[in-house]
């Protein structure tokens, strides 16, 4: 008999790992070790509330406010905590500044440590073996894959994140943005520019 998709006799069976996760949830809930509502809250937070827009706002402010930038680069944790961004896993945040002399790029060679409160969940490529292995070995080739070519005189420094320390790149402020508001500037700070696999966007109409 042909399989008729409009008439499934039973619910669609999720893949095996999905059933294993459900099994863990069931067991831990029965034992009173987890609160299912807390799981929903965590998913909602990372899916809908936390993302690169957080980091972009912070870095746009650093472009506008020299004292803020100095404090952020010197010791990011208290500055970020004041803005309500703190690491739920107890990690420290370090902001590294791009200059004409040095471009910074962030990786986690061991797994995928990432500044969650500022950037959210890392994209697939950040978690892939390809990026994790190549970022340290051949950062310029990786940058080229991302369409970034740096002037010859610019050196590349790669920062390896850990469970304790997460890095965020402060990209260079694009030319042609004099007089821009923080909101306008935040639009130019892309996720990739904060990981160092991209540059900040240039304002429309300039090159």
């Amino acid at each position, binding site marked *: 008999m042909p399989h008729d998709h409009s008439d499934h006799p039973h*619910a669609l069976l999720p893949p095996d790992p999905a059933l294993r996760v459900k099994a863990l949830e*069931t067991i*831990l809930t029965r034992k009173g070790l987890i609160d299912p509502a807390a799981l929903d809250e*965590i*998913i909602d937070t990372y899916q809908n509330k936390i993302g690169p827009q957080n980091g972009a706002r912070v870095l746009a402010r650093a472009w506008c406010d020299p004292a803020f930038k100095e404090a952020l680069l010197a010791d990011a944790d208290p500055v970020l905590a004041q803005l309500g961004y703190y690491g739920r896993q107890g990690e420290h945040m370090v902001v590294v500044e791009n200059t004409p002399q040095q471009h910074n790029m962030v990786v986690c060679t061991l797994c995928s440590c990432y500044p969650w409160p500022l950037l959210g969940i890392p994209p*697939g490529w*950040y978690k892939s073996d390809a990026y994790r292995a190549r970022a340290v070995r051949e950062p310029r080739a990786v940058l080229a894959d991302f369409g970034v070519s740096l002037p010859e005189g610019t050196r590349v420094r790669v920062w390896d994140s850990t469970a304790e320390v997460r890095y965020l790149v402060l990209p260079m402020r694009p030319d042609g943005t004099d007089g821009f508001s923080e909101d306008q500037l935040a639009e130019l700070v892309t996720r990739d520019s904060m990981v160092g696999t991209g540059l900040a966007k240039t304002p429309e109409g300039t090159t």
Partner: protein
Amino acid sequence: MNDCMPHSAPEPIFEQPWHAQAFALTVHLNESGRFTWPQWVERFSATLARHGISKDLNGGDDYFTAWLETLEAILAEAGTAAPEEVESTRQDWEKAYLETPHGDPVRLGGG
């Protein structure tokens, strides 16, 4: 051109619902004090390294397969969720899906 660059396509935050569920479960267990994040990272990194020997892991299913395996191992060692219990509960869920009419919410019987 950049058409096949990994960053050019818009990506969902989590590729699969179970990726999000495994992630949230782990974060919740960490935040309620079952293990520290450095402890988690140490174990998870070791799983990734082991899986990465035989193939180049992608950052999606491969990554969360390693994630789930790590979580199962930690909970098994702690005596929190024994492998036999996980397997029998997994089978209960599978049975529930197969016996629930399409469109109805799936629940564990007698749970």
